[in-house]
């Protein structure tokens, strides 16, 4: 499965099968993407590969460790490592609309925007569960 930023400069490939999407509704993720929630896959590092444009990526990091990596040309959020974990955070907006995905987890619904009424289905959390919980939910076999 391949993805790319808006201008096409940054491109990447995901090997293996990843279907379960997480959406975070917190204030930082809203500001970063300019959307009511972000949407992402947690992809194992060995399954993620840059195809082009890694040198086009700009980075900003908050003191807390919150990262924003984006294409310097078009501004699209782009994949970046999830801390020191074994996973890469991959924004699913960069994948084809036909990708066989489904939203499995919503987090930080307790701090969602007042006008955010769209969350439906999946496992829903008011705050942020542990990373281990998220990994377990995102990599479980579909029921």
């Amino acid at each position, binding site marked *: 499965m391949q993805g790319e930023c*808006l201008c096409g400069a940054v491109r990447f490939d995901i090997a293996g099968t990843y279907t379960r999407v997480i959406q975070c509704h917190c204030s930082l993720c809203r500001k970063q993407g*300019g*959307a009511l*929630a*972000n949407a992402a896959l947690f992809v194992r590092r060995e399954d993620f590969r840059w195809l082009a444009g890694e040198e086009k990526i700009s980075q900003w990091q908050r003191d807390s460790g919150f990262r924003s990596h984006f294409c310097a040309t*078009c501004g699209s959020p782009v994949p970046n490592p999830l801390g020191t974990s074994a996973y890469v955070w991959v924004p699913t907006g960069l994948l084809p609309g*036909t990708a066989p995905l489904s939203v499995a987890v919503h987090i930080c619904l307790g701090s969602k925007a007042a006008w955010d009424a769209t969350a439906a289905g999946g496992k829903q959390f008011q705050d942020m569960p542990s990373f281990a919980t998220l990994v377990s939910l995102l990599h479980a076999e579909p029921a």
Partner: protein
Amino acid sequence: MSATPQAAEPSDREAALAGPYRGGCLCGAVRFAADAFGGAAHCHCSMCRRFHGAAFATLVSVPEAAFHWLQGEADVAAYTAPNGTTRRFCRHCGSSLFFHSPRAPAGVVEVALAVFDGPVPVTPSAHIFVGSGAGWITPGDGLPQYEAGRDSRRVT
């Protein structure tokens, strides 16, 4: 990811402005205010999905006369796609902020609703461009959905 609210430092100019609805980017370099709003919609097109990295974008029309820069206009970068649409973002932190179509009515600024700091008197009223939307998102809010723009075929 964190639920900690973003605390941007207000500038003197911001403190002096009456407009109550302020917004800006993640790092705080870009700040603006709006004191009136037009309509808002969730856009599912492939370009909005990529620019915001998300399932869809949510854009609100702000009349130009009601839109005020507080700081950081020079910190905004722009990308114009082959179809003539322009999307603007903070060059420091990448926040996806603004949209412009040369085919849209003049005199409005399309702002990503999510980058306002706090509650705004805006409720999105439609999903647009669901005909090119991602198959993995199903809005659960019951709003009307249109194949393309609001004047296109209504899907649900």
